[in-house]
């Protein structure tokens, strides 16, 4: 808390959240919930989450952090730190941008699950009229210092186009992704496993003064890469879908994923509704997540210029390709303070 207060004094824009609630399957947030098939015990959650941010004429940056505590068992308690920054230069109808985020997660009660994740983006764009054409690449490198075989790297060149007509935004993108993880060979030794994926993304957005709707469909066709990826959690501690769950090719699969989210901002209220459906047909009966369904609702009300009260409920249901499943439901109430623009 002292850290956030100190940062609030120095940074142009600061937010701090304090929340308390419960979730039914806290292990689902751990990077390698190796025993989650055996069931999960509900736990109480308390957390302090913060973000400081600044923005210049063509640059942005900041750092986020969180302290999550679970009780009575504390093995999924988490400390995280996420610095981030980017630069976007625009000259006429052309732009170039590059940026990076680093996500450091430390589980004091389960150090083997701790990891550092670097994501880098470099992109050029052309902006004729109300359209945008983009070409770039994203690279991700995630390292688990205590479990090197869980580490992985990906690189993903992408081309995309986006156009806006009145309040409607339509985007299409296509990418090729190469990934490298680890697998256990026949002799029981750890071995490198490389795979590739062809990815697509279709997005439709509708924005009105009081609400916005975002819809996306993301198909993936994955090849090779024998790494089992089921140990990687599907959701972040705040309940957002973790794209890393799709990073490895896991022996090959075809996946369809649909996201729908809506933001509504009537007066002092803010409502966000999110939904996700994901279906994967795997080439191998590996421990790969087969189906995922998720929904959440967050309602926030401003109490003053700097303080807001919020509540969130969400449920995620996940089933492995070879049968087992779990449901993780979350509910919490919190306060959010914000300073700056």
């Amino acid at each position, binding site marked *: 808390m002292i850290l956030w207060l100190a940062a609030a004094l120095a940074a142009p824009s600061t*937010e*701090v*959240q304090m929340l308390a609630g419960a979730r039914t399957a806290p292990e689902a947030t751990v990077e390698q919930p190796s025993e989650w098939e055996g069931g999960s015990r509900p736990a109480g959650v308390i*957390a302090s*989450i*913060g*973000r400081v941010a600044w*923005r210049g004429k063509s640059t*942005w940056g900041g750092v*986020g952090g*969180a302290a999550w505590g679970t009780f009575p068992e504390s093995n999924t308690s988490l400390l*995280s730190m*996420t610095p*981030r920054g*980017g630069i*976007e230069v625009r000259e006429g109808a052309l732009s170039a*941008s590059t*940026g*990076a*985020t680093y*996500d450091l997660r430390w589980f004091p009660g389960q150090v083997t699950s701790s990891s550092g994740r670097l*994501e*880098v*983006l470099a992109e050029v764009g052309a902006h004729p009229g109300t359209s945008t054409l983009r070409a770039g690449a*994203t690279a991700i490198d995630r390292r688990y210092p205590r479990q090197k075989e869980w580490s992985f790297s990906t690189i993903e060149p992408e081309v995309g186009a986006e156009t806006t007509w*009145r*309040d409607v935004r339509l985007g299409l993108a296509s990418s090729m992704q190469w990934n490298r993880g680890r697998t256990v060979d026949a002799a029981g030794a750890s071995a490198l496993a490389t795979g590739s994926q062809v990815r697509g993304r279709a997005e439709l*957005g509708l*924005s*009105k*003064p*009081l*609400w*916005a*709707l*975002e819809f996306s469909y993301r198909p993936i066709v994955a090849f090779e890469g024998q790494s089992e990826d089921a140990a990687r959690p599907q959701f*972040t*501690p*705040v309940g*957002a879908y*973790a*794209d890393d769950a799709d990073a490895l090719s896991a022996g090959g699969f075809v996946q369809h994923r649909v996201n729908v*989210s*809506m*933001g*509504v*901002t009537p007066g002092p209220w*803010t*409502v*966000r509704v*999110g939904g996700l459906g994901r279906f994967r047909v795997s080439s191998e009966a590996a421990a790969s997540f087969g189906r995922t369904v998720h929904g959440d609702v*967050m309602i*926030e009300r401003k109490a003053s210029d700097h303080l807001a009260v*919020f509540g969130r409920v969400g449920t995620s249901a996940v089933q492995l390709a070879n049968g087992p499943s779990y449901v993780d439901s979350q509910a919490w109430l919190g306060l*959010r303070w914000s300073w700056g*623009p």
Partner: protein
Amino acid sequence: MAAYRASAERVSVLQIPTADPRLAIVQLADATARGVQDSKAREEVASWLGDPDARMGTLRDGLSAAHTVGPPMSDALLNDVRVQAEAMRLLATYDMAQLVKETRQAEARLVALNHAGPGQNAGIRTEFEAARLDAAIEAATSQVAEEQERIRELDSLDLPPREEVP
């Protein structure tokens, strides 16, 4: 009078030639009242008015000139100034409404992108999009303040109401 003419000529040199702006003014007023976009009418009115700062100077010169001549010349001058001032106010009001709409759209989209609170660990593309939306909100907010200042300037001209024109 000479100052007003000279000022008006200076502004007109900078203007993009346009047809009679009256229809565009009516269309823009209609769009503003209905809260809808009419980019064509907006551009026509803006082109007719030219640079806002230069036009404000012209209006002040016109008012000064109206006080140095008697009717019916002063009536005509005041009417001329009033038409331009009302068009400027309409343009500022329309622009403000559009900017406020854009700001609210961007705010709602930030919420939909799940970027309205900390701790979301969004992908870097979402971070870039959020930074763009933040920048757009800040630019629009600052532009709204400029338009409000423009309306205050127009109010400070203290034009007599139509029926009170001597």
